[in-house]
């Protein structure tokens, strides 16, 4: 099927629809970029168009007062550590559930799947109280441990992947005298690279954009993530639309650029994540 096989009026309708949607998506971002380069005066006279004079003042001010360097270091640090942990622990667990024979194997697998039904909203309050009791609130560990607990999807995904790797391969390695850890790290991990990439992408997008857990766990200014810092930034400066937009641009542009570079991997990763559940 191709667009050329449908009547001309339908073709026009399709394009009108697509272009309208594209404009609704692009316009807010374009407005954001333009506005962040305008002075407040320029914005009031000319709210839609291209800046009459490009001003970098807003962006510099937003970067320094918003403490963006810190926000990005926090976000990227928390996200990387959590994703690394998830991939390691869940890769191992998925492999263990796929290729070890032991009693209660299916039971443990179903126990892990249970979590897919329990959304974070449900456990928000008690999780905070527990974290408070062990004294981890206001530390990076609070959020990282929480993300490390979000294992169900990763385990499910890795288990399915490792089940697809023939047992003979492992038996052969065992006969050669390789230990379980050697088999896992030297044979399985390289084979599981596509699964690792998919899981890492899904969790990266999810953790980087997460708001709820940092909101309750990270009160300290120095610990804040980009989304959280954004929220307080927008509350602090009441009048300056241009400054606020500049800050929003600093929060959106890096993820967007990363997305545009890796868009194929991210798209197929997210699809896999949704469909394999």
């Amino acid at each position: 099927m191709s667009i050329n096989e449908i009547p001309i009026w339908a073709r026009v309708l399709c394009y009108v629809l697509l272009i309208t949607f594209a404009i609704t998506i692009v316009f807010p971002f374009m407005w954001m970029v333009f506005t962040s380069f305008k002075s407040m005066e320029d914005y009031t006279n000319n709210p839609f168009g291209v800046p009459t004079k490009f001003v970098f003042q807003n962006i510099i001010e937003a970067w320094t007062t918003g403490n963006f360097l810190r926000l990005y270091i926090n976000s990227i640090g928390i996200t990387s550590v959590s994703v690394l942990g998830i991939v390691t622990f869940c890769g191992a667990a998925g492999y263990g559930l796929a290729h070890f024979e032991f009693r209660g194997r299916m039971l443990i697998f179903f126990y892990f799947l249970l979590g897919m039904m329990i959304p974070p909203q449900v456990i928000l309050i008690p999780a905070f109280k527990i974290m408070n009791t062990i004294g981890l609130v206001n530390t990076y560990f609070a959020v990282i441990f929480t993300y490390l607990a979000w294992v169900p999807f990763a385990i499910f995904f890795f288990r399915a992947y490792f089940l697809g790797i023939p047992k003979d391969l492992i038996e052969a390695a065992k006969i050669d005298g390789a230990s379980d850890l050697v088999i896992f790290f030297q044979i399985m991990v390289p084979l599981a690279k596509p699964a690792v990439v998919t899981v890492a992408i899904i969790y990266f997008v999810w953790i980087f954009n997460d708001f709820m857990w940092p909101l309750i766990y990270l009160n300290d200014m120095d610990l804040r993530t980009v989304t959280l810092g954004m929220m307080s930034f927008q509350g602090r400066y009441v009048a300056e639309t241009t400054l606020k937009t500049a800050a929003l641009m600093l929060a959106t542009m890096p993820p967007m650029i990363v997305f545009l570079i890796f868009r194929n991997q991210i798209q197929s990763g997210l699809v896999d994540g949704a469909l394999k559940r």
Partner: protein
Amino acid sequence: MKNKRTNRYAHLIFIGPAFFFYTMFWITPTLVAIWISFTRWNGISWAHIKWTGFSNYLKLFNDRFFFTALQNNLLFVFVCVSIIFFTALAIALILNLRPFGWRMFQTTFFVPIVISSVVVGLLFKLFLSPTTGIINEFADYFNLESFKNVQWLGSKETATYSVMTVYIWRDLGFSILLFGAGLQAVPKDLIEAAKIDGASVLATIRFVTIPLIRNISLVVIILAVTNAFLLFDLIYAMTLGGPYHASEVLATYMYYHGFSRGQISYGTAIAVLLFFIVVIVTAIQLIIARLLEK
């Protein structure tokens, strides 16, 4: 012999870490949630928890803001999800016809997926500002009196609908992505066969493509409905549930009680109820899907 022994317990080393974090920070809080929803607790000392049975749940029935929140969630579920479903399907079908520049369109539609809801919410908050927002500037420019200085997020009548619009804007791309993947999986020879039989494109879509993407439609609906029930970030960023609880949803109302007002048990009861609603609604959808298949 030694080798055998280490083998016997190797699975513990492999499964252990994931099991530990999951049990400690996901399952335990769930059980604690169910427990404290049946108690009265000031949230300070674990020793002062008093069992009160169903009283928190009974209190919900006399709480009109709880019903506002539930009603808003249902608005999101029915209105937003239907709009998202049909629009996403239409766009995915059009993109599947490979129009000129389809890759560019595709990428554009997906951009909002990777931007966090909070940032999207804050951007649109600026957009909708009654004094400096772009909607207001439009109204000024074209002299549309009824759109001037409207408190889009600040008035009871419009707050929820404003957030709903932004929600659709933000979530549409993901459904398009899923439909797109489903359409790619439709076997090409079936389409070719329909073409040889003289079917028009529209007929092919109606009688070949649509029935074949039934499973993916189910996934799209279940995910969209679940997300609409669990909605939190966008409301928090745009209205905080206000004005005067008018745009509250269950998750923000739970947060309001649990964190802003310190009513730990009551907030948790809302959360537990939300959990059961999501589980039951998902089960119902799966059952309906089964019945339709027969």
